[in-house]
């Protein structure tokens, strides 16, 4: 067998104290489509960024046609025939297609020749784009074609595509897959980073699955079942403690979405028309990989976002714990007291009664076990766990009818996690409702038996399986299987 087009062996990479890659390997054969699968944070993109020379591996070996290579920059990997289409496109919006493709060259800029290259590659591959169009004016599909054409203009024979179908319509996706096959048949190699298992198995020749920075499965797509792939992606986790999970109730309706949908500034539908009821005494668990619509769903419920279509009914006071607490929940440079007051800032006028606010801050600190040198300490000086307990405590103190929490235990240790989950449970047990999004399936299952999964802007209720410890239906819904 001929040497592989690109092989990464035993790659390790650490960011700060996070181990992103911990012995990942991946061998890409010439003339093949290679699917790289894994959950968010499994290390797929990091591994391919290393292959593209964007970041350096701490340890490990990369070979190209059997010979060791060291890429110190994108420039070197591009020269070696590797192209990468990033999930968030790396194009200059103010430039034309031709200018973006000429970028990175030397000497005199020949605009005519650059436009000719775009047309020639367009004619040869079917990836037609107007060379004079400004990127900012193009739809995402055409922007993606520009990225691919740029890689081809640099004679790439290995093309890495990071979640390429996330921004495409089904028809566009099919076209892209057909093009990928032609490219591979012509001797090129494609790496397809994706979380869509079914599509990957249908289109790819080879599959590598990463889990927590390690390659846990390398095989031939044909001999792999969907279930086997999903199991490899999710892994054999310890069974969650589901004994305390709350059941759905038939209490008073607190939240009601009636065909509520959200479009972003570019007009793309982030959340498709959704029907959803949340009743008093319930916890609604929300699952979804990044960008699936859960962010918009939570903000609709929290009142941070207005629906572009449909109606949202919600209680007057809803506490909200956003994912990025230092950006969206508190001001790091302000004291705990000031941050306490800030939660009500929109509704209050006139003089601030600081002695009253100090007492309120002290109550949060003592009730929620926030370890701080005092309420005059700045938010920034607290550890992540203490910051989060403060934010959750502050929202709880507003006596909300409901609490919406987005990944509330992110980065917290076991003790802090337990404390935060306890507070969320308390809101529901007191006759309110809680909506919790988490990237940790086990955490959701330990909280509630009522779960919705977001995928591609759709919100789908997953009925609890008979066996409380069975996680397969959730795992499959998360990666878009059975949709």
């Amino acid at each position: 067998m001929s040497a592989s087009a690109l092989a990464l062996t035993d790659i390790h990479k650490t960011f700060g104290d996070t181990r992103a890659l911990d012995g990942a390997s991946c061998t890409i054969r010439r003339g093949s489509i290679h699917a790289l699968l894994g959950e968010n944070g499994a290390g797929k993109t990091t591994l391919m960024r290393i292959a593209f020379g964007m970041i350096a591996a701490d340890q490990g070996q990369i070979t190209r046609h059997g010979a060791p290579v060291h890429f110190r920059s994108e420039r070197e990997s591009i020269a070696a025939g590797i192209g990468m289409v990033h999930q968030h496109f790396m194009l200059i919006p103010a430039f034309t297609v031709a200018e973006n493709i000429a970028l990175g060259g030397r000497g005199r800029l020949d605009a005519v020749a650059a436009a000719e290259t775009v047309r020639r590659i367009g004619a040869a591959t079917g990836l037609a784009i107007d060379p004079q169009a400004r990127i900012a004016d193009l739809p995402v599909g055409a922007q993606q074609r520009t990225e691919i054409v740029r890689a081809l203009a640099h004679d790439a024979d290995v093309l890495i595509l990071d979640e390429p179908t996330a921004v495409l319509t089904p028809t566009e996706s099919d076209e892209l897959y057909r093009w990928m096959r032609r490219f591979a048949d012509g001797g090129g190699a494609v790496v397809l980073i994706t979380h869509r298992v079914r599509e990957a198995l249908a289109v790819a020749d080879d599959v590598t699955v990463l889990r927590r920075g390690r390659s846990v499965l390398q095989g031939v797509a044909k001999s792999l079942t969907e279930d086997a792939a999903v199991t490899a992606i999710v892994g054999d986790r310890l069974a969650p403690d589901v004994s305390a999970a709350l059941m759905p109730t038939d209490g008073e309706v607190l939240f009601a979405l009636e065909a509520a949908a959200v479009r972003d500034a570019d007009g793309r539908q982030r959340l498709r028309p959704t029907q959803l009821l949340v009743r008093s005494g319930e916890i609604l668990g929300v699952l979804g990989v990044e960008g699936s619509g859960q962010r918009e769903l939570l903000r609709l419920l929290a009142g941070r976002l207005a629906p572009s279509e449909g109606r949202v009914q919600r209680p007057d006071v809803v506490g909200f714990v956003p994912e990025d607490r230092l950006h969206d929940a508190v001001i790091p440079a302000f004291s705990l007291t000031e941050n306490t007051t800030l939660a009500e800032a929109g509704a209050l006028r006139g003089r601030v009664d600081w002695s009253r606010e100090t007492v309120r801050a002290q109550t949060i600190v003592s009730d929620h076990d926030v370890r701080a040198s005092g309420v005059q300490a700045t938010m920034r000086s607290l550890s992540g766990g203490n910051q989060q307990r403060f934010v959750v405590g502050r929202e709880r103190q507003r006596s909300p009818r409901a609490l919406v929490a987005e990944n509330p235990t992110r980065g917290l240790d076991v003790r802090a996690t337990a404390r935060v989950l306890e507070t969320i449970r308390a809101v529901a047990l007191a006759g309110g409702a809680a909506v919790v999004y988490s990237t940790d399936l086990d955490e959701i299952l330990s909280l509630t038996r009522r779960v919705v999964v977001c995928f591609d802007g759709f919100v789908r209720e997953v009925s609890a399986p008979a066996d409380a410890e069975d996680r397969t239906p959730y795992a499959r819904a998360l990666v878009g299987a059975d949709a």
Partner: protein
Amino acid sequence: MLELLLIPFLEATIRTATPLAFAALGELVSERAGVINLGMEGSIIAGCLGGAAAAVLGGSAVGYLGAALAGLLLASLFALFVVRLGSDQIITGTAITVLGLGLTGTLFHLAPTMVGVGATLPTTGPVPLPLLSSIPLFGRVLFTQPLPTYVLYVLVPIVAWWMRGTHAGLALRAVGESPVAAAAAGVPAARVRALAIGFSGIMGGLCGGTLVLAQVGSFNENMSAGRGFIAIAIVVLGRWTPYGTAGAALVFGGAFALQYLVQTLGLALPYQLFLAMPYVLTLVLLATLHGRAIAPAHLGR
């Protein structure tokens, strides 16, 4: 009337616009790479002292070389902090300007007689260009100027062509729009930024050299008089294009030249009013022009 008022006014406009255009052209290139060089003022004053000192030692040509190198020196320090160490552009730029003003003042006090008032610097006065200078009206206005002005006549089109017509120019503009995307296309973004800052330093130095060698004839403390900041306003008014910047420099040159016109006319207006003119213009323009939409997207970050 024409002879007495208009021609001297226009001639003075171009003369005073020349140092401004050098600084603004440098600032333009730096800003197109996404860097606001607030250290420009520092490069200018360094160019003044460096130019004066080098001219004393080796004549006017060496003087301009010294001016350029002195400007480059301060800009290199700016680039070291901003590009290599990732410091904040605004704070670092302000510090470089303060450093330039302070350092030149201190050095000047070590030997005030060498380059100060009364020293005989080899200056470069107006050089009428053969034939061209005898064109009626335009000849005296455009072609009876000191050499640095002629350099600009050539440099502005070259920079304009370079930015549009070369891969290096494209890379410069790309880095100003999105350094990450430029890097993904194989552009060495950090190096592009450092080189752009270096160019702006050389231009700032030449601005200072022109001031001291072609106009004032001696070094004074703080003689850059805010031209580095005016250059920033000129770039905004010029809509971040080379020709626009050159035109905007003329507008500011005209604002400076107004004071000569007023003196010639013998108007009973306090001349300080007209001295303040370019600075008022700077304030008004920076406050009213909505430049964000066309400014490089990654400017200042």
